[in-house]
């Protein structure tokens, strides 16, 4: 079953130069798709269009067989509830003035009326926050802390907990490990992998690190200068018909 389809997406910031040029992709239920490329290749722009942060110039995003451009209020709300995100910089992703518990509860409080959670159970705010912290392997005592009291890796775990708190169908991971130190990077990748096992959502994992993408994803897409060059299954990475640029990337790692 397809969770989301992107058809011929185009986006440009400067006239004459397309940041994303005619990209089509689809993500299946429970699948993680890796999107690899250098900085400036358009992968983050694509994510921003998907999340509705940027308006696309042309193309369509289809969710639940419905282009979200034509979605009514209710459908749009349903889309937002099912597409969550984790950004690169965990410090910027958490409001420094809010306790961890309040940041964690943000999506739940927003969507609580149309949620039917399977994995988590909401009995009280306190209990819900504890379930979330436990799921991302953080000590329960962190609920009442402020973000600056946590390490980078811990903060990123909090933003992951926030994204999974409403059991979305898709999480857009925009370079979630890029600003962490090596040991935290590995741990976060492992956590993301095991969360997918238990919760069964799909990932769009955006990264410049082909090896990290390889570790987490079943399918890999390669972008360069706004264009989608290559999409392949993980097992096919060493096939001879890979794009030259993909081979160049493989050679680096």
């Amino acid at each position, binding site marked *: 079953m397809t969770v989301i389809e992107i058809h011929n997406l185009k986006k440009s910031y400067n006239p004459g130069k397309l940041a994303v040029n005619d990209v089509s992709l689809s993500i299946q239920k429970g699948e993680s798709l890796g999107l690899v490329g250098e900085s400036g290749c358009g992968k983050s722009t694509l994510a921003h269009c998907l*999340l*509705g*942060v940027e308006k696309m110039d042309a193309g369509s995003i289809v969710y639940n067989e419905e282009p979200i451009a034509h979605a009514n209020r209710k459908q*749009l*709300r349903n889309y*937002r509830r099912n*597409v*969550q*995100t984790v*950004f690169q*910089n965990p410090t*910027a*992703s*958490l*409001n*420094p*003035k*809010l306790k961890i518990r*309040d*940041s964690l509860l*943000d*999506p739940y409080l*927003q*969507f609580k009326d149309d949620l039917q959670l399977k994995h988590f159970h909401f009995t009280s705010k306190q209990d819900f926050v504890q379930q979330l912290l436990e799921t991302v392997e953080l000590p329960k005592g962190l609920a009442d802390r*402020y973000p*600056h*009291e946590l390490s980078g890796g811990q903060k990123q775990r909090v933003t992951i907990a*926030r994204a999974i708190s409403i059991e979305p169908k898709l999480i857009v991971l925009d370079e979630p490990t890029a600003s962490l130190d090596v040991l935290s990077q590995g741990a976060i990748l492992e956590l993301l992998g095991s969360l997918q096992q238990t919760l069964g959502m799909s990932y769009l994992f955006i990264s410049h690190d082909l090896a990290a993408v390889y570790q987490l994803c079943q399918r890999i897409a390669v972008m360069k200068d706004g264009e989608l060059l290559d999409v392949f299954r993980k097992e096919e990475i060493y096939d001879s018909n890979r794009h030259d640029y993909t081979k160049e990337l493989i050679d680096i790692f």
Partner: protein
Amino acid sequence: MSVLALSQKRIKKAKVWLISIILLIVLAAVAYTFLYLKHDANMTDVGNRLASPTQAHPLGTDHLGRDVLTRLLLGFRLTVGYSLIALAAAVIIGVPFGLIAGLRGGWIDRLFMRIADGFLAFPDTVIAIVLSGLLGPGIGNLLFAIVLVKWVNYARMVRSTVLTEVRKDYVTIARINGLSTFTIMRKHLLPHIIGNVLVLASLDFGKIILLISSLSYIGLGAQPPTPEWGAMLNESRPYFQANPEMMVYPGLAIVAVVLVANVLGDYLRDKFDVKKEVQP
């Protein structure tokens, strides 16, 4: 711990003591005005003018034989009350304006910024003098002038806070989640604003007291026989050489209240800075 940090800690401690002592005196005085006020602040007794302290008049009497302590204490209520009113009005007008300008941008923001620039081109005191000069002397006009001058500060501060914060990822994520502008304001932006507003307000509180008093002193604010401290200073001017204490009492009162306001501002700033505990 370095010597510097140690001495800073001591200063902090001293400040807390100072603020407590002054507040205690003030509270006692206020309680006194409500419980034991024996004299009418405007009752003159020309036969007993410029008297030295006695049991009946603990701080003596002024040039019209009025009880100085009574006037001083009523003045506290007036001066503090007026500046609180002016402050509240400035905050109530300034904060929403700043929020809207920062969040909406566009022409609203540009219009607002030009107005703010206009006000900022002149010092507060000058605008207040001009306005109350134009509208005529009187405490109501003076308060109006002060609000007109002060709201800009709040609006600007709130706007700049909003502008820095809305660009951050956590606001983007809140938007992706479909949180309404109002919820983002209330839940995510207000905690950033509230501390700053309180700190600015407590510092402004002192400034407004000074402004009211100084404008009353030059005859543009509270008019005699209102026992406002600035007006009292003004009235006692001719008797300065023979009875300097008539100027000293209201002067000291102004200094004490302004000092408390500033210390309170410092304290609030520390309190609202959640990062203060972290040492690098």
